[in-house]
Each structure stands twice: as C-alpha cells, then as structure tokens.
C-alpha cells in the first residue's frame, strides 16, 4: 500500500487558472510533510515544510496546507514558469531515522 499518494498524476491548466494539488498520507506519527518542485532533468527543489494540522505556508503563487491525513498545494493564478512536477514527501516515526518517503508527484503544465 502506498504511504504517500498524490493526485492528480497530471494537470493541465490555462495561465491564470487556479487549482489545487493533493497529497494524502497513511503513515502514523507524522514528523513533517514536505513539498518539492522538480523541473525536467533537475533534482527536486525544496518549497515548504509543514509540521502540524492546520499549518499553512505561502510562497509567491503557492500555498501549502496540512490536515491530519492530507496536504494541499494551492496554486493561484499560475504562470507558465510554474510548470513542473510537484513532489510531496513525509517523514514519520518508524520511517527510518531521516529518510523521506515520497509520492510519485503531480506533473503540472500551465499553458499560456
């Protein structure tokens, strides 16, 4: 059973069309939930860390929220340069000392 599930797998939006990406997790003892952005041929780039339900963080057009079982990455009025794969990862008790458990990612395309 997947411990971190991201949906949708792919999303195509028009420039300016706001939407949300979902990351649901089934692990217990969450220590932190992380969002990364990955461009083609590059490594993941850190965006946010969320630690407890109810927490929110923002960066430019992105806002990440966390509940007890899922996280959302809200994208407001996206631009073509926001096109990328967005990865969610968790760190939890029993998940290895420092290893992150990743989801498969959401491939986001913003069309001009």
């Amino acid at each position, binding site marked *: 059973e997947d411990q971190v599930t991201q949906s949708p797998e792919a999303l195509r939006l028009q420039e300016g069309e706001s939407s949300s990406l979902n990351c649901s997790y089934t692990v217990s003892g969450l220590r932190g939930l992380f969002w990364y952005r990955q461009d083609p041929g*590059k490594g993941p780039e850190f965006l946010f*860390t969320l630690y407890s339900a109810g927490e929110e963080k923002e960066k430019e057009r992105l806002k990440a929220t966390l509940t007890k079982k899922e996280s959302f990455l809200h994208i407001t009025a996206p631009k073509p340069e926001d096109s990328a794969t967005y990865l969610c990862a968790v760190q939890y008790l029993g998940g290895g000392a420092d290893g992150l458990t990743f989801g498969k990612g959401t491939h986001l395309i913003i069309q001009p």
Partner: protein
Amino acid sequence: EAGVTQFPSHSVIEKGQTVTLRCDPISGHDNLYWYRRVMGKEIKFLLHFVKESKQDESGMPNNRFLAERTGGTYSTLKVQPAELEDSGVYFCASSQARGFNRELFFGEGSRLTVL
C-alpha cells in the same frame, strides 16, 4: 556558492559491469543522502551519512550497492555487479541540519541505464 554536484550525469553499462557514482555535497553540509527513482516509481531513500558515518542505510536494496563517504566530504555509490533493475536516476542531497529542518538540497541526478 556551488550546489550539490553529481557525476556522471548519465551512465550506460552492460549487466554485470560495475558503476561508481559520485556526489559532492554543498561545502559544510554534514548530512548527505542518496535517493533513487526507478521509472514509473516514486523517489526512494537509500541511505544517509552524517559526516563519514552511515547513519541509516535501511533503504539500500541489497549488498550489490556500496556507499562510502571519504573523510566526510564527497560520497560514492558503487553498484557491483549491476542488474537491469538498477536502472534509474540516482539523486544525492545534502543538508546542514538534521531533525525537523529538512531543507535538502538535491543534485541533478545521475541517470543509470543497465542494458
């Protein structure tokens, strides 16, 4: 400031051969991680070094994989002998702090193709 660098960017080898991947972390980062993404799957944790010591190697697939970190600086990941299922992208990441500060800086990855 230089980021995490990985070499080679792409390696194509025959099944049974040996490959060594190298990672140079950001200067001053004690924590170094190896991750792997197999096609169609999620990125998976392989192991974690703190300086020259292996802190957690619970993600290493089997004993064909050997990771070292000489003097707490750069790290190598050797696969010997390589199998078809070892194909994928190997990412290295480093961080200055541990615990809840999880801003990992990733390299661009080394793509391994085993034929």
